[in-house]
Protein backbone atom coordinates (compact mmCIF):
# COMPACT_ATOMS: atom_id res chain seq x y z
CA UNK A 1 0.00 0.00 0.00
CA UNK A 2 1.52 3.30 -1.03
CA UNK A 3 0.91 6.66 0.63
CA UNK A 4 -1.54 7.84 -1.98
CA UNK A 5 -3.68 4.79 -1.50
CA UNK A 6 -3.55 5.10 2.26
CA UNK A 7 -4.47 8.77 2.22
CA UNK A 8 -7.51 8.07 0.06
CA UNK A 9 -8.78 5.72 2.78
CA UNK A 10 -7.94 7.81 5.80
CA UNK A 11 -11.44 9.15 6.36
CA UNK A 12 -12.93 5.70 6.15
CA UNK A 13 -10.24 4.47 8.49
CA UNK A 14 -11.07 7.30 10.88
CA UNK A 15 -14.72 6.28 10.83
CA UNK A 16 -13.84 2.58 11.23
CA UNK A 17 -15.60 1.88 7.96
CA UNK A 18 -12.95 -0.42 6.53
CA UNK A 19 -12.64 -4.16 6.90
CA UNK A 20 -10.55 -5.38 9.80
CA UNK A 21 -7.68 -6.23 7.50
CA UNK A 22 -7.65 -2.82 5.82
CA UNK A 23 -7.86 -1.07 9.18
CA UNK A 24 -4.79 -2.94 10.37
CA UNK A 25 -2.83 -2.23 7.21
CA UNK A 26 -3.50 1.47 7.44
CA UNK A 27 -2.79 1.61 11.16
CA UNK A 28 0.56 -0.04 10.49
CA UNK A 29 1.33 2.41 7.68
CA UNK A 30 0.43 5.46 9.77
CA UNK A 31 2.70 4.33 12.56
CA UNK A 32 5.61 4.28 10.17
CA UNK A 33 4.91 7.16 7.80
CA UNK A 34 5.05 10.67 9.28
CA UNK A 35 3.43 12.29 6.25
CA UNK A 36 0.38 10.02 6.35
CA UNK A 37 0.22 10.31 10.12
CA UNK A 38 0.10 14.06 9.79
CA UNK A 39 -2.67 13.85 7.19
CA UNK A 40 -4.55 11.50 9.48
CA UNK A 41 -4.34 13.95 12.39
CA UNK A 42 -5.58 16.75 10.19
CA UNK A 43 -8.63 14.79 9.13
CA UNK A 44 -9.27 13.67 12.69
CA UNK A 45 -9.14 17.24 13.94
CA UNK A 46 -11.74 18.29 11.36
CA UNK A 47 -14.02 15.49 12.45
CA UNK A 48 -13.57 16.50 16.07
CA UNK A 49 -14.13 20.17 15.33
CA UNK A 50 -17.39 19.46 13.54
CA UNK A 51 -18.52 17.00 16.15
CA UNK A 52 -17.86 19.43 18.97
CA UNK A 53 -20.21 22.16 17.73
CA UNK A 54 -22.95 22.44 20.31
CA UNK A 55 -26.50 21.68 19.32
CA UNK A 56 -28.34 24.65 17.83
CA UNK A 57 -31.66 24.99 19.59
CA UNK A 58 -34.76 26.11 17.74
CA UNK A 59 -36.81 29.06 18.95
CA UNK A 60 -39.40 28.08 21.54
CA UNK A 61 -42.44 28.43 19.29
CA UNK A 62 -41.06 26.39 16.38
CA UNK A 63 -42.08 22.96 17.56
CA UNK A 64 -45.65 23.99 18.35
CA UNK A 65 -45.91 25.77 15.05
CA UNK A 66 -44.89 22.61 13.28
CA UNK A 67 -47.59 20.62 15.08
CA UNK A 68 -50.15 23.27 14.14
CA UNK A 69 -49.00 23.13 10.53
CA UNK A 70 -49.35 19.37 10.49
CA UNK A 71 -52.87 19.64 11.88
CA UNK A 72 -53.80 22.35 9.40
CA UNK A 73 -52.46 20.17 6.62
CA UNK A 74 -54.47 17.22 7.90
CA UNK A 75 -57.57 19.35 8.02
CA UNK A 76 -57.02 20.45 4.44
CA UNK A 77 -56.53 16.87 3.36
CA UNK A 78 -59.73 15.65 5.00
CA UNK A 79 -61.62 18.61 3.55
CA UNK A 80 -60.49 17.58 0.09
CA UNK A 81 -61.72 14.01 0.40
CA UNK A 82 -64.80 13.21 -1.76
CA UNK A 83 -67.26 12.95 1.10
CA UNK A 84 -66.34 16.32 2.51
CA UNK A 85 -66.29 18.01 -0.86
CA UNK A 86 -69.86 16.90 -1.35
CA UNK A 87 -70.72 18.50 1.99
CA UNK A 88 -68.88 21.62 0.95
CA UNK A 89 -70.73 21.70 -2.35
CA UNK A 90 -73.93 21.47 -0.38
CA UNK A 91 -73.59 24.79 1.39
CA UNK A 92 -74.11 27.03 -1.63
CA UNK A 93 -77.15 24.96 -2.49
CA UNK A 94 -78.59 25.26 0.99
CA UNK A 95 -78.04 28.98 1.16
CA UNK A 96 -79.42 29.44 -2.31
CA UNK A 97 -82.46 27.36 -1.45
CA UNK A 98 -82.98 29.28 1.78
CA UNK A 99 -82.80 32.61 -0.02
CA UNK A 100 -85.20 31.37 -2.64
CA UNK A 101 -87.61 30.13 0.03
CA UNK A 102 -87.60 33.47 1.78
CA UNK A 103 -88.31 35.19 -1.49
CA UNK A 104 -91.16 32.79 -2.22
CA UNK A 105 -92.72 33.34 1.19
CA UNK A 106 -92.43 37.03 0.68
CA UNK A 107 -94.29 36.83 -2.60
CA UNK A 108 -96.90 34.58 -1.11
CA UNK A 109 -97.56 36.71 1.95
CA UNK A 110 -97.75 39.83 -0.20
CA UNK A 111 -100.41 38.17 -2.26
CA UNK A 112 -102.46 37.27 0.82
CA UNK A 113 -102.08 40.34 2.96
CA UNK A 114 -102.46 43.03 0.38
CA UNK A 115 -105.63 41.51 -0.90
CA UNK A 116 -107.44 44.84 -0.66
CA UNK A 117 -104.90 46.57 -2.87
CA UNK A 118 -104.58 45.59 -6.49
CA UNK A 119 -102.45 42.54 -7.27
CA UNK A 120 -100.78 44.40 -10.08
CA UNK A 121 -99.04 46.65 -7.53
CA UNK A 122 -97.89 43.78 -5.37
CA UNK A 123 -95.38 42.31 -7.73
CA UNK A 124 -93.29 45.41 -8.43
CA UNK A 125 -93.32 46.23 -4.72
CA UNK A 126 -91.98 42.82 -3.79
CA UNK A 127 -89.35 42.99 -6.48
CA UNK A 128 -88.14 46.32 -5.27
CA UNK A 129 -87.86 44.81 -1.80
CA UNK A 130 -85.80 41.95 -3.17
CA UNK A 131 -83.50 44.29 -5.00
CA UNK A 132 -82.93 46.30 -1.86
CA UNK A 133 -82.93 43.61 0.74
CA UNK A 134 -81.85 45.78 3.65
CA UNK A 135 -85.05 47.74 3.65
CA UNK A 136 -88.16 45.68 4.16
CA UNK A 137 -90.34 48.49 2.97
CA UNK A 138 -91.19 48.74 -0.71
CA UNK A 139 -89.31 51.72 -2.01
CA UNK A 140 -92.04 52.89 -4.32
CA UNK A 141 -94.57 53.00 -1.47
CA UNK A 142 -92.12 54.75 0.77
CA UNK A 143 -91.31 57.44 -1.71
CA UNK A 144 -94.89 58.32 -2.66
CA UNK A 145 -96.59 57.96 0.72
CA UNK A 146 -95.13 57.23 4.13
CA UNK A 147 -95.98 53.74 5.39
CA UNK A 148 -95.82 54.92 9.00
CA UNK A 149 -97.22 57.92 10.74
CA UNK A 150 -94.37 58.35 13.12
CA UNK A 151 -96.26 60.42 15.69
CA UNK A 152 -99.01 57.84 16.18
CA UNK A 153 -96.84 54.77 15.35
CA UNK A 154 -99.59 53.40 13.14
CA UNK A 155 -99.45 52.25 9.53
CA UNK A 156 -100.38 54.88 7.05
CA UNK A 157 -103.80 54.61 5.51
CA UNK A 158 -103.83 52.30 2.50
CA UNK A 159 -100.77 50.41 3.79
CA UNK A 160 -101.51 47.12 5.45
CA UNK A 161 -100.02 46.33 8.83
CA UNK A 162 -97.97 43.43 7.49
CA UNK A 163 -96.68 45.43 4.61
CA UNK A 164 -95.36 48.02 7.01
CA UNK A 165 -93.99 45.32 9.32
CA UNK A 166 -92.74 43.00 6.65
CA UNK A 167 -90.16 41.51 9.02
CA UNK A 168 -92.81 40.44 11.52
CA UNK A 169 -94.89 38.28 9.26
CA UNK A 170 -95.83 35.17 11.23
CA UNK A 171 -96.30 33.00 8.13
CA UNK A 172 -92.58 33.12 7.44
CA UNK A 173 -91.89 31.21 10.60
CA UNK A 174 -94.86 28.86 10.60
CA UNK A 175 -94.65 27.50 7.09
CA UNK A 176 -92.62 24.30 6.75
CA UNK A 177 -89.46 24.61 4.61
CA UNK A 178 -90.49 22.58 1.62
CA UNK A 179 -88.87 24.70 -1.04
CA UNK A 180 -85.18 24.06 -0.16
CA UNK A 181 -85.65 20.35 -0.67
CA UNK A 182 -87.31 20.88 -4.02
CA UNK A 183 -84.60 23.26 -5.16
CA UNK A 184 -81.84 20.95 -4.06
CA UNK A 185 -83.43 18.21 -6.06
CA UNK A 186 -83.26 20.35 -9.16
CA UNK A 187 -79.51 20.87 -9.13
Amino acid sequence: MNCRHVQAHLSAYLDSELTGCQQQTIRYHINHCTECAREYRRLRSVKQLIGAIPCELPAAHCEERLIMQIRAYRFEMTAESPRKSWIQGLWPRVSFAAAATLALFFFASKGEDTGNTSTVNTLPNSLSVLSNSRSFQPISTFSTQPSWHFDSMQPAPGVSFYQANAWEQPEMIQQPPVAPIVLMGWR
Partner: protein
Amino acid sequence: MELTRETTARAFMDVQEQEFEELARRHYRQAYNLAYRLTGNAPDAEDLTQEAFLRAYRFFGRYDRALPFMNWFNRILTNLYIDEYRRRQRLPIRSLDDPIRTEDPEDNLTLELVDDGPSPEEIALSRYYQDAVQEGLLSLAPEFRLAVAYADIEGYSYEEIAEMMNCSIGTVRSRIHRGRKQLRAYLEKKYPELAQRGEEE
Protein backbone atom coordinates in the same frame (compact mmCIF):
# COMPACT_ATOMS: atom_id res chain seq x y z
CA MET B 1 -59.15 25.80 27.95
CA GLU B 2 -55.88 24.91 26.30
CA LEU B 3 -56.12 21.44 27.73
CA THR B 4 -59.62 20.79 26.46
CA ARG B 5 -58.67 22.00 23.01
CA GLU B 6 -55.72 19.66 23.05
CA THR B 7 -57.78 16.68 24.15
CA THR B 8 -60.48 17.44 21.61
CA ALA B 9 -57.86 17.61 18.88
CA ARG B 10 -56.48 14.27 20.04
CA ALA B 11 -59.90 12.67 20.11
CA PHE B 12 -60.24 13.23 16.38
CA MET B 13 -56.85 11.83 15.46
CA ASP B 14 -56.29 8.24 14.62
CA VAL B 15 -53.39 6.20 15.96
CA GLN B 16 -51.09 6.93 13.04
CA GLU B 17 -51.58 10.65 13.32
CA GLN B 18 -50.84 10.58 17.02
CA GLU B 19 -47.77 8.50 16.36
CA PHE B 20 -46.50 11.00 13.83
CA GLU B 21 -47.01 13.96 16.13
CA GLU B 22 -45.10 12.17 18.85
CA LEU B 23 -42.25 11.38 16.48
CA ALA B 24 -42.20 14.96 15.23
CA ARG B 25 -41.99 16.28 18.77
CA ARG B 26 -39.30 13.82 19.75
CA HIS B 27 -37.04 14.45 16.77
CA TYR B 28 -37.71 18.11 16.05
CA ARG B 29 -34.61 19.39 17.78
CA GLN B 30 -32.29 16.93 16.15
CA ALA B 31 -33.71 17.70 12.72
CA TYR B 32 -33.53 21.42 13.37
CA ASN B 33 -29.91 21.22 14.44
CA LEU B 34 -28.98 19.39 11.26
CA ALA B 35 -30.99 21.82 9.14
CA TYR B 36 -29.27 24.71 10.85
CA ARG B 37 -25.84 23.28 10.08
CA LEU B 38 -26.85 22.80 6.47
CA THR B 39 -28.45 26.19 5.89
CA GLY B 40 -26.47 28.31 8.31
CA ASN B 41 -29.35 30.46 9.55
CA ALA B 42 -32.43 30.05 11.70
CA PRO B 43 -35.25 31.03 9.30
CA ASP B 44 -34.05 28.70 6.55
CA ALA B 45 -33.45 25.94 9.09
CA GLU B 46 -37.02 26.34 10.38
CA ASP B 47 -38.42 26.25 6.88
CA LEU B 48 -36.41 23.21 5.89
CA THR B 49 -37.35 21.32 9.05
CA GLN B 50 -41.00 22.17 8.72
CA GLU B 51 -41.15 21.34 5.04
CA ALA B 52 -39.42 18.01 5.66
CA PHE B 53 -41.80 17.08 8.48
CA LEU B 54 -44.83 18.00 6.41
CA ARG B 55 -43.58 15.91 3.54
CA ALA B 56 -42.82 13.07 5.92
CA TYR B 57 -46.36 13.37 7.23
CA ARG B 58 -47.74 13.17 3.74
CA PHE B 59 -45.83 9.96 3.02
CA PHE B 60 -46.02 8.53 6.50
CA GLY B 61 -48.01 5.60 5.13
CA ARG B 62 -44.88 4.41 3.33
CA TYR B 63 -42.68 4.54 6.41
CA ASP B 64 -41.25 1.12 7.20
CA ARG B 65 -41.28 0.68 10.97
CA ALA B 66 -38.20 -1.56 10.77
CA LEU B 67 -36.09 1.55 10.06
CA PRO B 68 -35.37 4.16 12.70
CA PHE B 69 -37.62 7.14 12.01
CA MET B 70 -34.75 9.58 11.52
CA ASN B 71 -33.10 7.40 8.89
CA TRP B 72 -36.27 7.56 6.87
CA PHE B 73 -36.87 11.21 7.66
CA ASN B 74 -33.34 12.24 6.68
CA ARG B 75 -33.90 10.78 3.26
CA ILE B 76 -36.75 13.22 2.78
CA LEU B 77 -34.74 16.05 4.24
CA THR B 78 -31.83 15.29 1.93
CA ASN B 79 -33.99 15.40 -1.19
CA LEU B 80 -35.70 18.56 -0.06
CA TYR B 81 -32.44 20.23 0.76
CA ILE B 82 -30.75 19.35 -2.53
CA ASP B 83 -33.84 20.44 -4.50
CA GLU B 84 -34.04 23.71 -2.66
CA TYR B 85 -30.32 24.29 -3.07
CA ARG B 86 -30.52 23.72 -6.81
CA ARG B 87 -33.55 25.98 -7.07
CA ARG B 88 -31.76 28.77 -5.29
CA GLN B 89 -28.71 28.34 -7.47
CA ARG B 90 -30.89 28.94 -10.51
CA LEU B 91 -32.54 31.97 -9.01
CA PRO B 92 -30.49 35.14 -9.06
CA ILE B 93 -32.03 36.30 -5.77
CA ARG B 94 -30.33 35.47 -2.53
CA SER B 95 -32.26 35.01 0.67
CA LEU B 96 -32.42 38.13 2.78
CA ASP B 97 -31.92 35.96 5.81
CA ASP B 98 -28.50 34.79 4.72
CA PRO B 99 -25.94 35.92 7.22
CA ILE B 100 -23.63 38.58 5.95
CA ARG B 101 -20.08 37.46 6.50
CA THR B 102 -17.34 40.01 6.46
CA GLU B 103 -14.31 39.35 4.32
CA ASP B 104 -11.99 39.96 7.21
CA PRO B 105 -13.23 38.12 10.28
CA GLU B 106 -10.34 39.36 12.46
CA ASP B 107 -12.23 42.57 13.25
CA ASN B 108 -14.81 41.08 15.56
CA LEU B 109 -12.82 38.13 16.74
CA THR B 110 -9.90 39.59 18.61
CA LEU B 111 -12.04 40.00 21.72
CA GLU B 112 -13.04 36.37 21.95
CA LEU B 113 -9.85 34.57 21.07
CA VAL B 114 -7.01 35.56 23.32
CA ASP B 115 -3.56 34.38 22.40
CA ASP B 116 -2.54 32.79 25.70
CA GLY B 117 -4.35 29.63 24.73
CA PRO B 118 -7.93 28.83 25.72
CA SER B 119 -8.64 25.22 26.57
CA PRO B 120 -10.25 22.99 23.91
CA GLU B 121 -13.54 23.26 25.79
CA GLU B 122 -13.37 27.01 25.58
CA ILE B 123 -12.70 26.78 21.88
CA ALA B 124 -15.62 24.46 21.41
CA LEU B 125 -17.95 26.73 23.35
CA SER B 126 -16.91 29.98 21.78
CA ARG B 127 -19.18 31.44 19.20
CA TYR B 128 -16.14 32.20 17.13
CA TYR B 129 -15.26 28.58 16.78
CA GLN B 130 -18.82 27.60 15.94
CA ASP B 131 -19.11 30.28 13.31
CA ALA B 132 -15.82 29.29 11.76
CA VAL B 133 -16.80 25.64 11.41
CA GLN B 134 -20.27 26.58 10.25
CA GLU B 135 -18.79 28.84 7.64
CA GLY B 136 -16.48 26.05 6.54
CA LEU B 137 -19.45 23.69 6.21
CA LEU B 138 -21.32 26.22 4.11
CA SER B 139 -18.34 26.57 1.80
CA LEU B 140 -18.73 22.93 0.76
CA ALA B 141 -20.87 21.67 -2.09
CA PRO B 142 -24.28 20.55 -0.77
CA GLU B 143 -23.62 16.84 -1.27
CA PHE B 144 -20.33 17.05 0.62
CA ARG B 145 -21.94 19.18 3.30
CA LEU B 146 -24.71 16.66 3.80
CA ALA B 147 -22.36 13.68 3.90
CA VAL B 148 -20.02 15.34 6.38
CA ALA B 149 -22.90 16.54 8.56
CA TYR B 150 -24.47 13.08 8.66
CA ALA B 151 -21.17 11.45 9.52
CA ASP B 152 -19.67 13.95 11.96
CA ILE B 153 -22.66 15.71 13.52
CA GLU B 154 -25.18 12.88 13.52
CA GLY B 155 -22.69 10.02 13.60
CA TYR B 156 -24.38 7.77 11.05
CA SER B 157 -22.59 4.86 9.43
CA TYR B 158 -21.66 5.05 5.75
CA GLU B 159 -24.32 2.51 4.95
CA GLU B 160 -27.01 4.61 6.59
CA ILE B 161 -25.77 7.74 4.84
CA ALA B 162 -25.80 5.94 1.49
CA GLU B 163 -29.41 5.02 2.17
CA MET B 164 -30.32 8.59 3.11
CA MET B 165 -28.55 10.16 0.17
CA ASN B 166 -29.64 7.48 -2.26
CA CYS B 167 -26.15 6.70 -3.51
CA SER B 168 -23.51 4.00 -3.15
CA ILE B 169 -21.28 3.57 -0.12
CA GLY B 170 -18.28 4.32 -2.32
CA THR B 171 -19.79 7.69 -3.19
CA VAL B 172 -20.45 8.41 0.46
CA ARG B 173 -16.87 7.53 1.34
CA SER B 174 -15.46 9.84 -1.30
CA ARG B 175 -17.87 12.67 -0.40
CA ILE B 176 -16.97 12.52 3.26
CA HIS B 177 -13.29 12.33 2.54
CA ARG B 178 -13.28 15.19 0.08
CA GLY B 179 -15.65 17.22 2.22
CA ARG B 180 -13.38 16.95 5.25
CA LYS B 181 -10.32 17.80 3.23
CA GLN B 182 -11.99 20.85 1.74
CA LEU B 183 -13.26 21.98 5.11
CA ARG B 184 -9.81 21.51 6.54
CA ALA B 185 -8.27 23.53 3.73
CA TYR B 186 -10.83 26.27 4.26
CA LEU B 187 -10.13 26.50 7.98
CA GLU B 188 -6.39 26.46 7.48
CA LYS B 189 -6.67 29.31 5.04
CA LYS B 190 -9.16 31.47 6.92
CA TYR B 191 -8.66 30.50 10.53
CA PRO B 192 -5.10 29.21 10.78
CA GLU B 193 -4.92 29.50 14.58
CA LEU B 194 -8.04 27.36 14.95
CA ALA B 195 -6.76 24.72 12.56
CA GLN B 196 -3.44 24.75 14.41
CA ARG B 197 -5.07 24.14 17.74
CA GLY B 198 -7.29 21.40 16.40
CA GLU B 199 -4.29 19.50 15.14
CA GLU B 200 -2.45 19.44 18.44
CA GLU B 201 -2.96 16.89 21.23
